[in-house]
């Protein structure tokens, strides 16, 4: 979603995006003239008149599970975004929680009185090289 018109989205999709991704981007490209929705989500920059890079993961009940807001010069990390979606889907299905650095397939934690003070037995922090 940006403040551009749907016509601008159409041309961007046809002229550029479809040459980067086969068939173009598959999701709806939303237009937010005047930044009304951006203001509602706290990502509208009044001085520049545009929405900044905000992204929100919204669950099937309409609850915001995660958000990330970046200033314009730095792009997003799609792998991290997908990891977060998978983690929130996993907790929704199982009630298990994901320790820091969790990746799909890696051990999860089952919170409860028995785990208090014993996380060190089942999980070690990642080493960052």
């Amino acid at each position, binding site marked *: 979603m940006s403040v551009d018109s*749907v016509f601008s989205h159409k041309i961007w999709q046809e002229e550029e995006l479809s040459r980067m991704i086969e068939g173009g981007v598959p999701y709806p*490209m*939303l*237009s937010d003239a005047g930044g009304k929705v951006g203001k*509602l989500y706290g990502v509208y920059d009044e001085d520049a008149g545009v929405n900044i*890079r905000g992204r929100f993961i919204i669950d099937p009940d309409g609850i915001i599970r995660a958000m990330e807001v970046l200033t314009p010069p730095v792009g997003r990390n799609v792998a991290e975004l997908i990891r977060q979606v998978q983690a929130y889907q996993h907790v929704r299905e199982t009630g298990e929680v994901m320790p820091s650095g969790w990746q799909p397939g890696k051990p999860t934690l089952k919170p409860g009185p028995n785990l208090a003070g014993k996380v060190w037995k089942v999980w070690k922090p990642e080493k960052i090289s």
Partner: protein
Amino acid sequence: MGEELEVGCARPIGGPVKSSSDEDKQTKEKEIIKMSVQVGKKAPDFQAPAFHEGKMKQIKLSDYLGKWVLLCFYPGDFTFV
């Protein structure tokens, strides 16, 4: 998903979706719509025109209840990042 829009010269618009009980207060609140998002809280509903699968449509967030939604804002088409 989303209702197809007729394409004319008037630019289609979107904005927050309010419940009817909000309508009396609407004029006063118009000036003071503020950031109201927080993790763990309901995502504020909105509708907005969209380009999708070659068509112009009106998209409403609440039509996507029951699905995971990724809502992404960005500064503009044809920007570089």
